[in-house]
């Protein structure tokens, strides 16, 4: 049924008044094919659609102006942006554009949509295409299609991964089930995504410079073992019936994460979605409570997330499965704060926000310029701050892009990742070591001898091992 609707709307694409498609009368013709799935989910959808039907002026443009929002593909400036991202529906309806107004770009997105439909009609899937210096990368996740067009020369696999993160971000706002229901009912998804442009803008910004995301891992804050241990114990002891996960962050990095129920652990991608919510919000002084869907945990339903900055830069997160648990969670927060204060951990926590970063010189590894490290078992990662010669923005970006390429080459072999990968250019030497327990990418000067690179890498691994308790959460 779904497929039929999609193809019908495909044919009507040209005539569709995109953006004003919010036909409220359609409510009665809506598919009820999700009803038998799960009662609670079904009521959620019912809620949303009945509300939508009630709302009179659903498609008024109330969003604050965004940067470059006046641009579209009739403007040469628009083509100068290096990396575009688009989201549209399978029927070609525009949902999001990184630059410019998505409604003004509707013909452009319709063209992209036609490309995917054409390949699909040949029973194939369009993944990417190259046009001169530009590459187009497609990610199709029924009923959404995400496209990146860029001339940054990044490997296709890395862009694919970035699109996956953006898709996860959209799911986290609405759930996959609701998105499908909205499309079945032919509503305009943008009404329900209202205000999330900023979240998507932010995650795009992040996937372009964040080492933990590059390695599909989570960065923990560097903190002494006893403090972290005490925090974990406090979180473990202060649980209530509805709490599923308790997390404490400092400077938007993980201090501790406790699973309160017998369930799967949080995947790095879900954690980055959460971090993105927190870094995108402005209010840091009140207690927040919001529905959030974690796509890898359960893409059909919402969890209820309690957020409170208990001290500057110190943020407590409690995930609950009950919508009315706010006061219970708030009380739990009071107890956690009391415990943290009675164990005198406040200073250490707030201080760590400014002291957790480290430079390569602190590792005392000779000639080391930079490195990124991931523990493949726990999925935690660490990296030092940029130091000379990577001090200017273009240089930082260049190193990031270089890591992307090296990561791609080292991991992209069809079978297993390469155990060793040695790369030298005019500007740097990067040595990669991957085994079942960890992967490390270490950067040296291009003039370094192989022998001394090997030696340095061993010293670095030794340093990480010695500091394991401080760099990572114990598993």
């Amino acid at each position, binding site marked *: 049924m779904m497929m039929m609707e999609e193809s019908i709307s495909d044919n009507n694409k040209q005539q569709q008044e995109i953006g004003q498609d919010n036909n409220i009368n359609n409510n009665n013709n809506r598919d009820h094919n999700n009803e038998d799935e799960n009662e609670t989910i079904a009521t*959620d959808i019912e*809620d*949303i659609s009945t*509300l*939508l039907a*009630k*709302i*009179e*002026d*659903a498609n*008024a443009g*109330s*969003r*604050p102006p965004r940067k470059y929002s006046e641009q579209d593909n009739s403007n040469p400036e628009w083509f100068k942006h290096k990396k575009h991202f688009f989201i549209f529906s399978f029927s070609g309806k525009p949902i999001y554009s990184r630059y410019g107004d998505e409604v003004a770009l509707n013909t452009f997105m319709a063209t992209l949509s036609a490309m995917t439909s054409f390949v699909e009609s040949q029973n194939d899937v369009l993944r990417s295409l190259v046009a001169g210096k530009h590459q187009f990368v497609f990610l199709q996740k029924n009923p959404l299609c995400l496209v990146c067009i860029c001339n940054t020369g990044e490997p296709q696999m890395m862009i694919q991964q970035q699109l996956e993160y953006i898709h996860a971000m959209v799911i986290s*706002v*609405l759930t996959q089930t609701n998105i499908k229901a909205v499309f079945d009912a032919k509503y305009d998804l943008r*009404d*329900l*995504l*209202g*205000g*999330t442009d*900023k979240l998507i803008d932010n995650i795009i910004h992040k996937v372009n410079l964040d080492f933990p995301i590059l390695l599909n891992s989570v960065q923990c804050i560097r903190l002494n073992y006893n403090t972290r241990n005490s925090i974990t114990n406090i979180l473990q002891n202060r649980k209530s019936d509805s709490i599923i996960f308790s997390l404490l962050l400092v400077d938007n990095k993980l201090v501790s994460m406790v699973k309160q129920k017998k369930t799967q652990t949080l995947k790095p991608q879900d954690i980055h979605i959460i971090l993105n*919510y927190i870094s*995108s*919000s*402005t*209010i840091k*002084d*009140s*207690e*927040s*409570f*919001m*529905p*959030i869907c974690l796509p890898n945990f359960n893409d059909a339903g919402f969890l209820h*997330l309690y957020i409170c900055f208990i001290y500057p830069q110190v943020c407590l997160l409690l995930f609950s499965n009950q*919508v*009315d648990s*706010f*006061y*219970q969670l*708030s*009380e739990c927060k009071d107890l956690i704060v009391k415990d943290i204060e009675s164990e005198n951990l406040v200073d250490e926590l707030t201080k760590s926000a400014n002291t957790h970063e480290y430079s390569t010189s602190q590792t005392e590894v000779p000639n080391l310029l930079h490195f990124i490290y991931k523990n493949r078992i726990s999925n935690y990662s660490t990296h030092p701050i940029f130091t000379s010669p990577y001090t200017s923005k273009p240089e930082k970006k260049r190193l990031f892009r270089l890591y992307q390429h090296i990561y791609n080459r080292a991991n992209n072999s069809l079978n297993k990742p390469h155990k060793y990968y040695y790369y030298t250019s005019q500007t740097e030497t990067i040595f990669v070591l991957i085994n079942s327990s960890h992967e490390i990418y270490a950067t040296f000067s291009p003039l370094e001898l192989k022998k001394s690179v090997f030696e340095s890498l061993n010293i670095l691994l030794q340093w990480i091992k010695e500091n394991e308790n401080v760099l990572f959460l114990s598993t």
Partner: protein
Amino acid sequence: MVKSKIDVKVVLLGWSSVGKTCIVQRLMYNQFGDTSTTIGGAFSSKRVSVGDVDVLLGIWDTAGTERYQAVNRSYYRRANAAIVCYDLTNYESWDKVKFWIDELTTNEPDIEIYIIGTKLDLVKDNTEPRAVPIEKVRELAERYRAHTFETSSKTGENIPELFQTIAENFCKKYPQGIVTSNGSKNNSSVNLQDNNNNGNKKASSGCC
């Protein structure tokens, strides 16, 4: 005599970008600045005094964007007062006020409704024309026995007054403290008892 305490649950509703978060920021921190779209709801509490009664306003700032409207119901459940906001310079935001008042009167018949016009400074300094006629506001307010205010979070005009009035009206209505809000913090049950014990004394001394 021990000061008595009363908890009042207040919820802010209204269309997106009318300035709900700005009202809270002005009240809590006496600040005005850029805010981003609220996600879900944010809770803050503010202490005000009515006579010798300490009133703790628990304020829910909700998201105006549509996807959270289903969720917003859980925020206004068992609330004592609702602040329904519209932008004085935007008629569409006024249309939404009726929607919220309908919702509230159907689901929470006991709730006190405050209809609040925001961005008064824009009207006063003639930056933008008034888009919502005062008569319309009055008419709707009379129909639902709602209170009305016109505020500016930028200048702070009428913001403290609004919350003071909410606290005073609540004390008048429920001199004995919480009657309906069993959804608030567990320790409110302690308060409830305190209030019941002191109830008679307070009624005579605390409220005008």
